[in-house]
């Protein structure tokens, strides 16, 4: 068997970002976490004798509608480094330890609502649930608005003492204002990212900081690029790092192009497998 693709998901970005800064980090922190985990998974894949004949794997790190891609080949030097021990858990240990099946069944039964309600009662419950959801949503929006007002006044204060790029970054967050209606345009995110990158230029330590392009969102791939192009990407200052694409948003033209690229690769695998059957 082969495993042509691994995907690691993290929780979706926040629905009520306080400001552009919160929105940006909500996406980045989830994708960073997913990226690091999917890297560990790829290392285990290539360490396992079960998959000894496989040479390539597509890696997807995702959160909500955002994702980053990488393609890892068996020859990559990333495989010479071990994943951090904390990333690996004991699997398939003693099954059912601390779990008594009778207790589990009883707990499950206690949580289930046995439906003996009339259609009218069910409709009433549905309406109640909807009203409750609307109330919660409103409350969240109010809280988010209060948090935004507070953050805005703090930013204004910070602005008076900040200098240079930090000041520019604060100004961008202030100018971006509130999310419309629950998100920020790509342009605001790119503006934020550009200054953020300048502030952190030269900082070492984060292996996934290297990107092919200076933008936050990955541009469309060139027509001749294939999964092999991605597999051959290297970080010039650390050839043991796996190079992921920038952020891709599902449904964007970039996403469609990468989707076609992976599909072409999978079709090749499928055609070969079919010819063997």
């Amino acid at each position, binding site marked *: *068997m*082969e*495993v*042509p*693709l*691994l*995907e*690691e*998901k*993290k*929780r*979706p970005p*926040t*629905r009520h970002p306080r400001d552009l800064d919160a929105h940006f980090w909500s996406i980045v922190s989830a994708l960073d976490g997913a990226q690091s*985990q*999917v890297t*560990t*998974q790829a290392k*285990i*894949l290539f*360490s*396992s*004798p*079960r998959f000894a004949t496989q040479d390539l794997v597509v890696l997807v790190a*995702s*959160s*909500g*509608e955002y994702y980053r891609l990488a393609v890892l080949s068996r020859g990559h030097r990333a495989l010479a480094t071990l994943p951090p021990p904390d*990333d*690996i*858990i*004991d*699997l*398939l*240990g*003693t*099954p059912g330890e601390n779990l008594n099946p009778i207790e589990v069944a009883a707990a499950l039964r206690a949580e289930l609502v046995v439906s003996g309600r009339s259609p009218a009662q069910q409709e009433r419950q549905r309406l109640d*649930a*909807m009203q409750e*959801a609307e109330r*919660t*949503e409103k409350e*969240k929006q109010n809280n988010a608005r209060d948090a935004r007002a507070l953050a805005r006044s703090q930013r204004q204060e910070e602005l008076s003492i900040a200098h240079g790029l930090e000041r520019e970054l604060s100004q961008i967050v202030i100018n971006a204002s509130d999310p419309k209606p*629950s998100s920020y345009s790509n342009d605001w995110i790119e503006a934020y990212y550009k200054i953020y990158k300048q502030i952190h230029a030269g900082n070492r330590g984060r292996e996934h900081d290297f990107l092919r392009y200076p933008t936050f969102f990955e541009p469309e791939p060139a027509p001749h690029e294939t999964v092999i192009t991605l597999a051959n990407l290297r970080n010039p200052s650390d050839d043991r790092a796996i190079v992921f694409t920038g952020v891709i948003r*599902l*449904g964007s033209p970039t996403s*469609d192009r990468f*989707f076609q690229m*992976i*599909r072409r690769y*999978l*079709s090749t*695998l*499928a055609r070969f*497998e*079919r010819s*063997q*059957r």
Partner: protein
Amino acid sequence: MESLAYFIVSMLSLALIHSMVYNTRRLETIGYTLSIVFLQQLIAGHEDIFLICPQFPLYVSPRDEEPSPDVTMPDPEAKGVYVDHALLLPRASQTEGNRLKLSQVFSQAHSQRNQDL
């Protein structure tokens, strides 16, 4: 996105992921719906080749070196992770002598509703 149907179902999945009723706690597992839609499109036309597997266990174990396929007892030394979604490609081949090709065996068994291959 390949088709209108997939576009619609992707939007529905996103609405579910961001829903205050069905995903109050912003859990990642609700997002599995979107992953499955994405993977379904990726393998469209090749459903006879690939399997979509949520929570696929990837691990290494000292037992990897021992060929004992029928052992079902726990392996306390296995170390690994569960992958949210893996695309699997089972390499199918025949181990016993049969003059038909595997694809022909599948077709024949399918037309006869015979699952005892």
